């Protein structure tokens, strides 16, 4: 395991956390080629709660996967606090994810053979400065279900375990791919509240994918993705609390 930090924190104040330039991603070749991202240029501010909005298939997950160090772009660069992620090899990307990034996936993706507590511990085991798994679960109001297996939890509970798992390492950035996609609005709001709390309390830059425009109401900044392009970036004047959202 790499112990030296591959990513140096050498940003000047108010530098964006992410600086993307000319990002594109092409799947396949020739006639079958799919342009998932086309020449995306964007910045993500430190500590912000950003919402990525877009239709299905527009390229949101692709963008997030590249920012999160899960995937490589076909062209363009991504800088994280001054480090070019596209230049890192697999080992350094692994270390980058381990130190800095928390993920919440659309389909929870819990390990079926581990309990809620153990699913969180899976991440805290390898994080440099984690919180206790129990504390992370308490943050998402799951202290009562810590020793249950995923199959014994409801969909919303599973998603909150996934959030606890993502935040337990105190990540610098938190990526959430449709965290409420499979949930009803009441449960969705509890999940969003948990996310907002983490954003505020831990200061983690949070990027949240959704195709539910209402959720954009809680964002510091909204990125609209259309057909592989970041079409529009807006900063709403008013930020609503999740409880005030309604869908």
């Amino acid at each position, binding site marked *: *395991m790499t112990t030296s930090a591959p990513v140096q924190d050498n940003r000047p104040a108010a530098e964006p956390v992410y600086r993307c330039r000319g990002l594109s991603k092409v799947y396949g070749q020739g006639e079958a080629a799919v342009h998932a991202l086309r020449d995306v240029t964007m910045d993500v501010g430190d500590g912000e709660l950003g919402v990525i909005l877009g239709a299905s298939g527009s390229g949101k997950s692709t963008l997030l*996967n590249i920012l*999160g160090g*899960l*995937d490589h772009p076909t062209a363009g660069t991504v800088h994280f606090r001054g480090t070019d992620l596209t230049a890192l090899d*697999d*080992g350094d990307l*692994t*270390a*980058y*994810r*381990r*130190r800095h*990034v928390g*993920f919440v*996936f659309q*389909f*929870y*993706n*819990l*390990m*079926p*053979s*581990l309990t809620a507590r*153990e699913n969180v*511990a*899976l*991440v805290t*085991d*390898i*994080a440099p400065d984690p919180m206790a798994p129990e504390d992370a679960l308490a943050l998402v109001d799951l202290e009562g279900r810590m020793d249950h297996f*995923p*199959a014994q939890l409801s*969909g919303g509970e*599973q998603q909150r375990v996934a959030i606890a798992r993502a935040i337990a390492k105190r990540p610098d950035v938190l990526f959430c791919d449709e965290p409420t996609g499979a949930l009803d609005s009441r449960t969705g709001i509890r999940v969003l509240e948990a996310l907002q709390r983490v954003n505020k309390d831990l200061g983690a830059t949070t990027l949240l994918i959704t195709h539910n425009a209402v959720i954009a109401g809680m964002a510091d900044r909204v990125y609209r993705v259309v057909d592989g392009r970041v079409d529009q970036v807006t900063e709403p004047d008013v930020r609503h609390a999740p409880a005030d959202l309604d869908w």
Partner: protein
Amino acid sequence: MALGTLNRKLGRDLWRLRGQVLAAALIIATGITLLVMARGVMVSLEVIRDSYYERNHFAQVFASAKRAPERLARAIADLPGVRQVETRIVEAAPLDMPDLREPATAQLISLPERGRPGLNRPLVRHGRWIEPGQRDEILLSEKFAAAHGLGPGDRLRATINGRRRDLAIVGLALSPEFIYAIAPGDLLPLEDHNAVVWMGRDALAAAFDLDGAFNNVVLDLSPGMDPAPVVRALDGLLARYGGIGAYGRKEQPSHAYLDAEIEGLRSFGLVSPAIILAVAAFVLNVIIGRTIETEREQIGLMKAFGYSRWAVAGHYGAFVLAIAALGAVIGSALGAWLGWAMTGFYADFFTFPYLYYDLDPAVFLLAALFAVASGALGMARGLARVLALPPAQAMRTAPPAVYRRGWVDRLPAGLVSPTGRKVKRHIGRWPVRAALTALGIAMAMGTVVSMRFMDDSMAFIIDVQYNRAQRQDLTVTFTRAQAARVRHDLAALPGVRAVEPFRMVPVRLRLGARSERIAIQGLVPRPVLSRPLDSRQAPIPVPEAGLTLSTILAQKLDAHPGDAVIVEVLEGRRPVLRLPLAATADDYVGKSAYMGLAALNRALDEAASINGTHLMVDPAAGETPYRRLKDAPLVRSVSRRAVNIETARKTMAEAMLVFSAVFTGFAAVIAFGVLYNGARVALSEQGRELASLRVLGFTRGEAAGVLVGELALLTVVALPLGGVLGYLFAWATTLSYDPELFRVPLRVEPRTYVLAAGVVLAALGASALVVRRRVARLNLIDVLKTRE
């Protein structure tokens, strides 16, 4: 770095998949069991043999002559490298056993009048040693005594050099010289027909007119001394006294057979486990590969969280290592125990005075090495997959299968059930996976064949030996060569319908630098009763001026048809002949050489011309011919084919009872391991789909039928291939036998294929039951709630 949680996942996964883990571990365990068992028996036999040899002073060089003066012992002792010399009188005598129709044969061995023999010292187990001067006191070999219910105090009627003698048994004994007491030409020792009788030197000298002389000598050599020069020097000394060729331990019959058995265990203990562990590695490959495919999201997830690809690979590697370790532990324990049981079996088959069982700790190391090697080979493919899976890719579910309409869909609806269509599409979608699974099943069947074909080979040997090559009812040998007309006397015996004379003469065959000692058989031109056979079991005519050698002997001499082989006759006027090799005879047991009787007699230039005959006897004649043979003074030994066949069958049946039961059990475990794992992996791959079918209203049977149907189809396809693989595996197994004494013919009878197919089908049935139960228990809600 703390990997506690990952280890917990490992533990849970192992437990969750315990059925599969155990099934896979058991395949490895069978290989390890064989390895540990064979090694254990081998090492123990070696230890027992060596200590027995040492305690009872087993000689290193052996020689026989016609009559050598005792003073020659000095000259022999002066040969460089000779440490000890023991001269003896060794002869043969028929015994009249009341419970046998035909006479039994005793090998008479002299004991010094005072003290104990310095070499080849018998171990008296019951009774006492013979008293000096007591000319009728004997020690009798224990197995023969047991076969006839004899003990110290009983008497034995022998015809020694044509004279009836009534001998007093004073002790029962064993000797390192006769651990495996097999008579020349026999397939197996006939315990109730072949005796060893030890008696005083003076008594034997008087009986055979060997006062102040010996006809057998055994030597011990200085440590590390190569026997070859001593053998040559001894031959030189004995040549003028009718020496028939000295030889070292390697050629001493009992030692050679024991050695061949130990060597057989050594190579069998490597070849067989290697085959099984290769199968295990292959099966693991399929299982692990498919398991990893079902866990690709979890793999991606771990990587997304920052576990390095090596940490993730290590996790799955540990999974396989745990299987291998479990297999190694089970196999080592079972092998150690079976080895102990088998050593007992062997110690009884060979006559050892004591039992000792020890396992060289190195064998466990070897076992662990084999298990880990098969595990490592078994996971190589899967690990490569784990390493290569990019995290983002893995986060997407495996792309939905692309099913295509195929020929099945064009069949009328009534002909193929919906289940059948689904099975066919599934196989069509994953052709490689289906092919690998079928290959795994075929390998399982092949292993069954390779563990069972030995019965076929042995039955074939018995059939060739006693039904085609040797068809005589009796073989009679004479105390010394007789005029040819003796055969008319035998033909005149009541009930004797055919007589075929022969002459056996000790010779040394030479070709180039190689030489072999053997008793050559002079045969009539067209033998009918006992004849050499070619590789298609057709009789070979005996050429007037040519030599026929058994395959084994021809190989040892590196002789090819047409080669001129030098035949040094070691009897009478000791002529030296040059005979072309005319043909090789496809014998499976021992070394034999044949030539024309007339040519042999011309070379020897003696009036006497035969020293044995084969006889056909009318069963209706009852006891009379046998009684006459028991009374005939010139008879040295009589052997009855029926006894040989019966002994061979009995010994085979006993061995089969032990070995075949064990091996068939192993084979069944392997077949079940393969099929059960195939079924379970398929179940975890298709669990959601099956649950959906159930939700849609399919019955449990129908849902399970999809899985079982696929497995059954693959099994049916795999069976013929399994037969072919079985033949190959069997062939590899025959290679592991040293053909020195025994050639194992590669025979696989249809019944063995049927049995192997039956074992595989039974394993399929058992796996189907398990799948059915699992499908019945599928929790529909759970399966649909969590994404796999």
